[in-house]
C-alpha cells in the first residue's frame, strides 16, 4: 500500500454552479472594504448578508432534505467556505454548518427540531475548548439536577448563535448539552479580543443553565471526531480562499509600486516567494477539494481523516506564509493599519489555531501513515 493513498478528486456540475454563485455572492457582499467596515463593531458582518445566505438555504447545505436541508452533503460547503475566505466575509455560517454536522452525527432524531431550526436559518456554534489544549478533557458538566455548570473558552460565533452545543461530561463520558442562547444572560457571554478582527469569539459561563436536551452515548465520540475533522476541512477551505486573496493583493502591489526606477515585481527576490505562495495555495486547494470529494454523511474513515488533516496542515502554512510575505512586500505601507496585508496576517494567526495547527495535524498524520 502506498503512503500516498486515495487521490480521488470529484467536482460535478452542481458543485461548479454553487462555486460560481458563492464566489460572486461573497465578492459582492464581502471583500476587503466590507470587512474593514466591521473591524471594530460587535459583530463582523451585516445581518442583511446573513439573511440572504439563509434565504439561499446555505445553513442547510450539509443537512438531509427531511430535516429541511439541501441534501448536498457537507462536501458542498467547501466551495462556499473557500469563497467566504477569498472575500474575508464573516457570518456564523461555518460554525453553524459544523454544529449541524455534530448534532446530525451524534443523534439526528433527538436533535431534529434544532436541526430544522438551523436549516431555516438559526445560527449555531459549538463550545468545546477549556484550555489551550485541543484535546482537553471537559470539566463542564450537567449536575444531578440536570443543570449545566462550567466555563468554555473562545467559542467561535457565540455572540450570534441561537443554539450552542456544549461539550460536557455526563456520568464520566463525553456528552453534548444543547443550550438555547436566548436563555443566557448577557453576563454569560464574554467577548474576547481576537488577533483577527474579521472573526468573533467569546468565553461562555454556564451557571445553573437548563439544556434543551442532552445527547450521550457512543455516537457522541465519533460525532465529535468527525466534527473536528470537518472543522479542520472548512477552516482549511476558508484559509485557502484567504491565501488566494492575499496573493492577489500582494501581486497587485508588486505590479504598480516603483522603486529605484523599476516596478518592484520585476525583482526576483520578490517574484520567487510570490510563486512559492502560489504553489502553497495550489496545494492547499488540491487537498481541500480532494477532502471535499471524500466526506459523506457516513462516519469518516481513514482516507477522509488523512485528507482533512492534510488540508488543514497545508492551508494553515499557505495562509501564514502569504500573510507574512504580504506585510513584508508592502514595505512601510505594510506596517500600517490601512494596508490590507494586516487583515491577512492577522487572519492567518487565528485560522491556524482553529481545529489544530499544522504540527498538530502532521503529528497525527505520521501515526496514520507511518505506523503499521
Amino acid at each position, binding site marked *: 500500500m*502506498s503512503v500516498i493513498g486515495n487521490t480521488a478528486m470529484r467536482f460535478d456540475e452542481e458543485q461548479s454552479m454553487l462555486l460560481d454563485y458563492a464566489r460572486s455572492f461573497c465578492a459582492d457582499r464581502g471583500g476587503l472594504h466590507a470587512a474593514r467596515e466591521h473591524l471594530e463593531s460587535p459583530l463582523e458582518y451585516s445581518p442583511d448578508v446573513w439573511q440572504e445566505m439563509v434565504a439561499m438555504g446555505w445553513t442547510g447545505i450539509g443537512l438531509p432534505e427531511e430535516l429541511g436541508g439541501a441534501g448536498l452533503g457537507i462536501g458542498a460547503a467547501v466551495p462556499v467556505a473557500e469563497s467566504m475566505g477569498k472575500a474575508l466575509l464573516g457570518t456564523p455560517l461555518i460554525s453553524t454548518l459544523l454544529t449541524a454536522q455534530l448534532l446530525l452525527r451524534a443523534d439526528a432524531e433527538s436533535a431534529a427540531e434544532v436541526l430544522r431550526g438551523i436549516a431555516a436559518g438559526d445560527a449555531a456554534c459549538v463550545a468545546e475548548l477549556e484550555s489551550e489544549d485541543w484535546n482537553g478533557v471537559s470539566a463542564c458538566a450537567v449536575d444531578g439536577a440536570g443543570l449545566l455548570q462550567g466555563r468554555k473558552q473562545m467559542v467561535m460565533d457565540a455572540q450570534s448563535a441561537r443554539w450552542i452545543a456544549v461539550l460536557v461530561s455526563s456520568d464520566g463520558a463525553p456528552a453534548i448539552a444543547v443550550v438555547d442562547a436566548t436563555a443566557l444572560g448577557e453576563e454569560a457571554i464574554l467577548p474576547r479580543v481576537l488577533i483577527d478582527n474579521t472573526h468573533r469569539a467569546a468565553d461562555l459561563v454556564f451557571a445553573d443553565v437548563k439544556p434543551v436536551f442532552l445527547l450521550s452515548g457512543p455516537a457522541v465520540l465519533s460525532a465529535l471526531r468527525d466534527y473536528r475533522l470537518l472543522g479542520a476541512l472548512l477552516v482549511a477551505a476558508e484559509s485557502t480562499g484567504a491565501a488566494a486573496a492575499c496573493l492577489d493583493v500582494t501581486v497587485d502591489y508588486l505590479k504598480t509600486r516603483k522603486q529605484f526606477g523599476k516596478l518592484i515585481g520585476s525583482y526576483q527576490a520578490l517574484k520567487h516567494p510570490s510563486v512559492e505562495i*502560489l504553489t502553497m495555495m495550489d*496545494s492547499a486547494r488540491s*487537498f481541500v477539494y*480532494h477532502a471535499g470529494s471524500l466526506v459523506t454523511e457516513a462516519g469518516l474513515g481513514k482516507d477522509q481523516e488523512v485528507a482533512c488533516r492534510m488540508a488543514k496542515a497545508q492551508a494553515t502554512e499557505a495562509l501564514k506564509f502569504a500573510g507574512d510575505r504580504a506585510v513584508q512586500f508592502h514595505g512601510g505601507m505594510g506596517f500600517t493599519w490601512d494596508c490590507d496585508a494586516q487583515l491577512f496576517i492577522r487572519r492567518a494567526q487565528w485560522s491556524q489555531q482553529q481545529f489544530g495547527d499544522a504540527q498538530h495535524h*502532521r503529528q497525527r498524520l505520521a501515526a496514520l501513515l507511518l505506523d503499521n
Partner: protein
Amino acid sequence: MNAAVKDLEEFRREVASWLEANKPDDPGFLLPQTFMEVGSEQQLDFLREWQHKVWSAGYLGMAWAKEHGGQGVDAIYQSVVDQEMRRQAVPICFNVIGLGWAGPLINDIGTEEEKQRYLKGILSAEDIWCQGFSEPDHGSDLGNARTRAERDGDEYVINGSKIWTTMGNYAKYMILLARSNPEAERKYDGLSFFLAPMTVAGVETRPIRKLTGEYGFTETFFTDARIPADCLMGSEGEGWKIAMKTLQYERGAEAGAAGGLAFVRIVIDDLVNQLRDVKRDGRPVLDDPLMRDQLVSLIMEEKAITLGDRRSGIPALTSDYPMSLPLSNKLRWTEYARRMRQFAINAQGADGALFVGDDRAREGGFWQRAYLNSFSATIGGGTSQVQANIIAEHVLGLPK
C-alpha cells in the same frame, strides 16, 4: 465489459507475464535511473540488450507503422506496456532521444526515405541518438546557437561545439541545430535542423565527468565535419521551428513517442521502505518525532502534486490561475525530488556518508547518487529559478 476493454485486459495480462519471465536479473552494478546517466560500456551493453529484447517482443513503438519497425496498433497498447513496466520496475528503454524526440519528429514531418532510414534503428537500439541543441556559451538560449553549417556542393560543413550531449560518445546520429545563414535578418531564420551522422571525420566527443564521478554527457566538437546535404530536415531556415517542435515532444506536450520507460521513478514509498530498518538513538528512525514531521511534509508534497494533476482536469477549480498547475509541474516535481532524496541521505544516519563503490553503502549508494543526479532535472530544461520567473511572469503577470 465490452470487447475492446476485455481485449486490453487480456493484453495487460500477456504483457505482465512476459515481463515477469523476461525481466533481467540484478546485474550486480547500479543501473542508470535516467537515460542521462548511461556512463559506462557495461551499462550501455546491458540497456541495449534490454531495449532490443523489448522491441523484439513487439512491446516498443507499438503505435509506429509496421514497415518502420512498429506494430501499427493503437497507442493505448503501448501505454498498457509502459504501465506494466513501471509497475514491475524493469530497466529503462534508454534510447530516449530517438524514441521520444527524434523518432516522433521524423514520423511527423520526415520524408518516407527518412522514416525508412532511421526509425527501425531507433526502436531496435542499434542506432543511438543524441541531441545537439545547447552550446557552451549559450546554455538553453537556443536562438543564439553559433555552430555553423555551410553548404558546399552536396555537403554541409559543420564547425562549432555543443554541450550536454547525452550519450554523445555512443550515438550514431544527432539531431543538430546549426546556423546556416549568419546574415539572416532575424537570428531565428538563420537556423537549420539536421539529422546528422556522428561517425564522419571531424566530430569529436569529450565525456563530461559529473559531480557523481560518473559520465553520461559529452561536449561535442565539430571541425570541418562534412555531412551529406540530404541530412537537412525540412528546408534551410526552418531550424528554429523544428527545434521548438522537438521540445514539445521532450516536454510531453505532443504525443507520438515510441514508449518505454525513460526514467526510474523514485517515490516516497521507496524512501519510507528503505527507512524501516534504520535506527536513530537506539530506536527506529521512523519513531523519531522530528523525522516523522519532515517525512509527513514530504508525503504531503508528493500527494499535492498528484492531486494537482487531478485538479487541473477540472476547469472550475483552476479558474483564477488556469496556467498555474501545468507551468509549475516541472518546478514542483524536480524540487521535491531533490529535497526528498537529500532527506533520504540525512535519515540514514552515519551510513548516509557512504557513496557508490562502498560495500556498506545502503542499496549500493542509490540515494546518494540519486540526490546528486537530481540536479540534472532542477538545472536542465530551464533551471528552477528560470521556471519560477516564467511562472511569476506568465501566471501571476509580474513584470519582466
